[in-house]
């Protein structure tokens, strides 16, 4: 079905975020990252460069990672979104979170939510990635303090944990 709205008029959208159906009244120009942070209070998704380069705003949208600073909130209408807040389940960290914790994959933590979402998407497709494959998969996520060495080790550790539990 087609939809038309004229700004500044708003549209009511429904998005499944971390397993919960949520609704919001949005202007067409609202970016997905601001819907998540400002309307839903999910501030784990960060705004870094705001130019779709750095990946601090990466979330999973219908099974693919996207830069939520470069997707309109209205485009997520009817979609399923996972943010960093949705990674841990029943009080247990996601294996990728555990990997970052065990292998010191973060210092300041600003890039970490995006890194974890990107790494988790890689491991869904490729349970045993090589170092090169990990680097290629996190190309869109910039870290400016930890350095990528420990991040790659974190992802490798997560892959091991996931293969062990599979």
């Amino acid at each position, binding site marked *: 079905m*087609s939809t038309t709205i004229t*700004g500044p008029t708003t549209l009511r959208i429904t998005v499944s975020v971390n397993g919960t159906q949520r609704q919001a009244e949005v202007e067409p120009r609202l970016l997905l990252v601001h819907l998540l942070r400002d309307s839903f209070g999910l501030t784990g998704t960060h705004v870094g460069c705001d130019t*779709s380069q750095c990946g601090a705003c990466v979330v999973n949208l219908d099974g*693919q990672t996207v830069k939520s600073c470069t*997707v*309109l909130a*209205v485009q997520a209408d009817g979609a399923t979104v996972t943010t960093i807040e949705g990674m841990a389940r029943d009080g247990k960290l996601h294996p990728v979170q555990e990997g970052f914790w065990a292998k010191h994959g973060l210092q300041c933590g600003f890039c970490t939510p995006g890194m974890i979402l990107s790494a988790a998407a890689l491991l869904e497709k490729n349970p045993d990635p090589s170092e090169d494959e990990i680097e290629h998969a996190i190309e*869109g996520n910039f870290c400016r303090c930890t350095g990528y060495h420990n991040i790659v080790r974190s992802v490798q550790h997560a892959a091991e944990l996931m293969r062990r539990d599979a």
Partner: protein
Amino acid sequence: MFPSSFAYHRPASVEEAVALIGANPDAKVLAGGHSLIPAMKLRLAMPEALIDLNRIDALRGISVNGEVTIGAMTTYAQLLDDAGLGGRFTVIHDAADHVGDVQVRARGTLGGSIAHADPASDFTAVILALGARVTAIGPEGERTIEADDLFVDLFTTALRPDELLTRITIPAVAGTVVTAYAKHAHPASGYPVVGIAAMLTMEGSTVSAARIAVTGATSKATRLTAAETALTGQAADAAVIDRAAAAAEGLEINGDAYASEEYRRHLVSVLTGRVIRQAIARAT
């Protein structure tokens, strides 16, 4: 950064989209949005309306049946996931695998890239090398445009303002056809400072036909006809490849703060030689 206000249209069919484009001359068509939304956030683009094509399923998909037809809204990720396409035209995987990053490839579309005609788009050169054609639909119906006639200038194509690009068709090929793409990427943006795409038809070690195109160095993606001529009908030995690479230099080339005209000219020649060698290596 926030875009200025706009009306939002989300058509469910191509016909509806074409009607909306006709009725909203100041609207922009939203494909993957990875060029348009950043431009809107910087207020370099302030369209009155967006016509979002993302819910039109008919514009997505790849069919391989002699010729290859790719829906305009097919994403780079979908191009990469299609093993049949990658097996036949390696150049598509070569290029798609290095567009932006995983997240850009999840959203960015082939049709969007071509219609935007960024002088540093990877795929403008790829479709030129493949001898593809595009289909556009407007109020008067469909027409096809050869890739050779599509790129007019910087960010300018032969598409009319009331037309929508719907699909890209790569003609069927016969014999031993090999393709490749090589680029020197800008270290920060990943865009090609220079990118070269090639499709060669081989008869034994002889190149019986060649299509080679450059992007990044010129104001629009352009065929390297001198290099093509230097190769065609020749046994592709080192001397012939070097001659073709040297012939690629004779173009009007742009320089900028990152890469001078002279440096880009050098890269055009180096990458032309490299891409020819890569393609030929795939014939064996």
